[in-house]
């Protein structure tokens, strides 16, 4: 046994110089190749390096974003009066050094939840229509309109919601339940978010539905199922991973949407108890207060902590969507 051990140690000792000489050899070989190469060969080798640096740019940017947001939000997490407890503490009052961000997280999740609740049934319905029942003449115009909806800047959605949707909620919808509101409410935020999410859900789901093989539909129809039964029970369940990815991606967009929500949710520091109560979401607090806060270290740090949580949430949503796609590739072979 001891001999074997010695052998292994010896091998390990031999491997280190071997590895080193191999690396040195590769480097000197590269340098030698570069020196003997003609002009176009030199350009080729330098060009490879020139392409490599942009390739890792996106990775570097992600690392920088994580590092800087973490660096900026550390002070609030290590502060004795604040600490990690700010995530569940509901009082935000920078004047008294109270930086609870729970109300923003609740506001964001409620807004996104309402938006998803409205947008998912509509979006999946629209996707089924586009991929299964749409007459050929109508398909391209409808697709173009939906793509253009995705391109409209969020500030324009915000403008429309502020000037059209909010008065409608104030004058027409709120009186139904005998509640009074100035219209700037959770419902307005959820509705405009739902409208903004619809293009994403419809486009990705339509693509997912269209990758379902034709043979599945034909088999179902041949068994005597009606078209609606085929599309609901066969096509939709076959495309479930793609639809799931669409929903998760749009959820990420809903939580991260800034300008439109900022303009219509009323920005009031309270937990909303009804649809017509104003609320405050995570993106709005950063937009509204970072400008004033950057000279107060703790306040500024709390806002960056909100940004850091947003970042972690968006990374989680992307990971979940990737998981859905992997699941689809594994169980169905397409997505």
């Amino acid at each position, binding site marked *: 046994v001891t001999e074997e051990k010695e052998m292994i140690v010896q091998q390990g000792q031999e491997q280190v110089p071997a590895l080193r000489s191999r690396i040195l050899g590769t480097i000197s070989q590269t340098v030698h190749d570069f020196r003997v190469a003609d002009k176009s060969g030199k*350009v080729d080798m330098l060009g490879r390096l020139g392409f490599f640096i942009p390739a890792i740019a996106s990775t570097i*940017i992600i690392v920088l974003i994580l590092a800087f*947001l973490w660096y900026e939000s550390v002070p609030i997490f290590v502060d004795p009066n604040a600490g990690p407890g700010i995530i569940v503490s509901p009082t935000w009052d920078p004047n008294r050094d109270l930086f609870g961000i729970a109300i923003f997280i609740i506001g964001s999740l409620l807004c996104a939840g309402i938006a998803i609740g409205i947008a998912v049934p509509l979006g999946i319905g629209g996707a089924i229509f586009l991929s299964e029942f749409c007459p050929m003449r109508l398909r391209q115009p409808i697709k173009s309109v939906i793509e253009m909806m995705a391109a409209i800047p969020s500030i324009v959605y915000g403008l429309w919601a502020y*000037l059209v949707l909010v008065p409608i909620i104030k004058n027409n919808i709120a009186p139904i339940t005998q509640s009074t509101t100035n219209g700037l409410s959770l419902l307005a935020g959820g509705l405009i978010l739902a409208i903004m999410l619809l293009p994403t859900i*419809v486009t990705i789901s339509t693509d997912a539905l269209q990758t379902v093989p034709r043979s599945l539909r034909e088999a179902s129809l041949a068994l005597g199922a009606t078209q609606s039964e085929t599309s609901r029970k066969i096509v939709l369940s076959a495309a479930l991973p793609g639809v799931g990815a669409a929903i998760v991606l749009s959820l990420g967009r809903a939580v991260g949407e800034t300008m439109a929500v900022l303009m219509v949710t009323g920005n009031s520091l309270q937990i909303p108890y009804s649809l017509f109560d104003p609320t405050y979401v995570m993106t709005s607090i950063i*937009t509204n207060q970072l400008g004033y806060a950057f000279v107060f270290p703790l306040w500024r740090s709390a806002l960056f902590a909100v940004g850091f949580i947003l970042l972690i949430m968006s990374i989680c949503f992307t990971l979940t969507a990737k998981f859905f796609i992997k699941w689809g590739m594994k169980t169905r072979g397409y997505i």
Partner: protein
Amino acid sequence: MQVSINSESFLYRLYGRIGLKDAMKSRRHFSDYIFKILLGIIIIIICSPFFLILFQVASVGFWQVFGTGTGQGLEFLFTFPGAGLEGGIRNAFVGTVELIAMASVVGIPLSVFGAVYINEYTRPGYMREVIEFTSDVLAGIPSIVFGAFGFTFLVDFLHIGMGIIAGSVTLAFMMIPTILRTTEEALRAVPMSLREASLALGATKWSTIWNVTLRAAFPGVITGVLLAVGRVMGETAPLIFTAGNSLSVPTELTGPGSWIASMPYTIWAYISDPREYLQVKAHGTALALMMMVLTIDIVANLISRKVTRRLV
């Protein structure tokens, strides 16, 4: 006899034509029919906000952008705002164009060359997956987080200061994922035989990429660039803390003289203002911005359709 007369009548033909005749056959056929009608209603609901928004913006802002009176039409786009923000939006219009131009100068090479490296030099594996994953993560990051990052990294840490450079570099970061993924797809669609033919003629990889591969993938690259430009053109949140705002165009690259206005920011500032005439100007700006963004989007779609048609 009664039936044959009925089948001639208009109502009966309509009854067959809209499918009700089939739908009445059984309960399952009826629910099938209802389901289809429901989907038709849903697609109308989905598309209607686009026209409602267009109507709202155009009904107030149309004469601001297309009118011929004082302060309307081209005069609106090409005069600086004066006292009390009367006048045009030249600061915002020129600001947006300058920001997008500088963002493109930084962002397009970064993402196109990155995609070339992933597709031409790496084998499918660990490195490619990492880069693709990070660009997907980058695409999902909220715009306000980009703004906060640009503020702490570019403005504060690198001491660039608010202004045109910080604003456009932040926008360039946001352009990367869109262009990278579109370029990658376009490069993947270039047939291997083209590259092999070029390499067999003795060309280096570098000249193959520039003269053959990128040229064949050019329409796809342009599509990605246009989509990315259209997307960042309407972004407000990243610019609030990085570009600042200004009533004129920037005169220097750093310092307070480099603060720059943009059209989305101007819409936000004008719409939050209680003065009545600023609402009209906000609508005019929104209409101009929407027209720019939608034109870019339509052109991108036209190019990409041509590409797919040619490849198929």
